């Protein structure tokens, strides 16, 4: 996966190709119960099968491109150490999904902001908490009151909901 070991970046491309095969298989396999032709007209399975067939053909061409093309598209993959930042950012997103309904959006935004600002952007605790509070209140006011989006108040329901 690293730059040095796989100069053409083939491994991730092979993985991509295999994932596409799985998708093709899924399109055909999971639509087995549906009819391809219904009352003389294309049925609900028609489009998934057409897409699966074309995607399958394209995937063969993709593998040919990866292995045999002289003008193979250069793929530079990040080192594992470089993936720590992106992974942490995605984790903050997952954290938001987990706590969104449970803690409510104000607490979730505060938590996510502090974690992101402190551990990813390396701000001080004080600044992270201050900006976190500011962001959680601003987003609540903007979306709940100005844009009228009903948001879960969660643990702050006693304070935020009349």
């Amino acid at each position, binding site marked *: 996966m690293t730059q040095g070991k796989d100069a053409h*970046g083939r491994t*991730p*491309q092979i993985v*991509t190709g295999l994932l*596409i095969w799985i*998708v093709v298989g899924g*399109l055909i396999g*999971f*639509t087995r119960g*549906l009819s391809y*032709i*219904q009352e*003389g*007209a*294309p*049925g*609900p*399975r*028609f*489009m*998934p099968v057409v*897409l699966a067939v074309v*995607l399958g053909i*394209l*995937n063969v061409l*993709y593998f040919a*491109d990866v292995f045999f093309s002289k*003008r193979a*598209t250069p*793929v530079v*993959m*990040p080192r594992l150490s*470089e*993936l720590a*930042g*992106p992974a*942490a*950012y*995605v984790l*903050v*997103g997952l954290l*938001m*999904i987990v706590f*969104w309904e449970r803690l409510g*959006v104000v607490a979730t*935004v505060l938590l*996510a*902001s502090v974690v*992101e600002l402190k551990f*990813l*952007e390396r*701000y001080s605790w004080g600044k992270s908490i201050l900006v976190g509070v500011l*962001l959680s209140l601003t987003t609540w006011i*903007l*979306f709940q009151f100005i*844009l*009228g*989006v*009903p*948001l879960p108040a969660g643990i702050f329901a006693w304070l935020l909901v009349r």
Partner: protein
Amino acid sequence: METILLMLHGLAVALTPINLIFCAIGVVVGTVVGALPGIGSAGACAILLPATFKMGPVTALIMLAGIFYGTQYGGTITSVLMRVPGESASVVTMFDGNPLARQGKAGVALGIAAIGSFVGGTLSVIGLMVFGPPLADVALMLGPPEYFCLMIMALSLVVAFAGESIVRGLISVFMGLMLTVVGQDLMTGQPRLTFGSLQLLDGIDFLPVAVGLFGLSEMIAYFEKRTPLEIIKAELGFFKVLPSLKDLKESFWPMIRGTIVGFFVGIFPGAGPTISSFLSYGLEQRISKNPTQFGKGALAGVAGPETANNAATGGAMIPMLSLGLPSSPSTALMLAALIMFGLRPGPTLFKDAPDVVWGLIGSMYVGNVLLVVINLACIPLIVYFMDKVRGYLPIIILLLSAFGVYSYRGSTFDIGIMLLFALIGYGMTKVAIPLAPLILGLLLGGTLELSLRQTLVLSDGNPMIFLTRPIAATFLVITCASLILPVLLRRRKD
């Protein structure tokens, strides 16, 4: 005469206080987003699309369009001052804009870019007025077979322009089309690939996918390699960015040529502002009396491409408004907004919703005037803001994305879909599969399937109908040419 009257009506719509305010918000957001490397116009439109639900369709579209053409202005600032293009369409501006800044002419480069953007943006709206309505009238004559082939042609053109590999572009399109088969079948109502999930019964929504692919995936990539940026210190007050008469004279013809190139390239699906700016740069370099100056600080190298990328935004509106075909992710989001407001994009839009269409066109005149004023007068403020906000951008984007997606259907499932597609988008970029074809495939997939199945019902299942109808066959020939020609040309080049 009728067009002029409709245009005046459009201007009246655009100049109502509420539309004027949201036009100003759109162009300011667009300028700032364009100036900030890492999030493009599509990402900004996607993130802010849910905020438009409470507005009327005219106001929403005016704001989204403002973001779209505003980013083309803003992208120049970082290209010139930091050698980091805020937008892909501003990459070319960097070639000569940054050397000009290093020679102490940052103000001139930014001023010419702003004026060029204004010229390109404004003249292209005239083109939109001239070519848009007749094209819509022609499109009214198209039946399901022609419409199917037209969409196939649009997608193939997007693929042809999307990147180096046609195969990768096609894979991206088919991934987008594949997402549209999830949910209830359009004709029979039977659930397809829903795996018993109630949320999937409504299908995979466009919004979380677009926000994930274009907003968040860029931020994930940002965390991979964080490079400190050097901003060239320059005096950027109003009078410092006003170009001299000599500079304006030197830039006049590059601006005119940039407008023509940008407008016509912008009409083609997939081509858009980036390709038009590269073509304009190539043209200016080729016809210049002093081609060796290019790359070292040629003013024509800034004026031409900057005019072209803004003219392309006007061109891009033609297929969107007249045919209901998006030519870029940003116009796809505007189409999604129309659909969300219950309007049917396509040739009937000019007649069904003249307020929306002509209000939007009118707002583009107003927006371009606002932008040139903002860009000439507020560059120091934008640079200061950019400097201060950079560190907080990832969390702000994550929050706005999550809130925006949640507010559409009130479901955390959509936030999960958004996060999933952010990862998919990041992965696709890593393995050089372009993102734009996927989003256009997702937007057009439903209509494409419907047209195909309607056509096959009409022809008793005979696919030869596509070849026996002249317009459909012509579209198919163009489709084949757009996919085969680049491969042949590349082979010949090799």
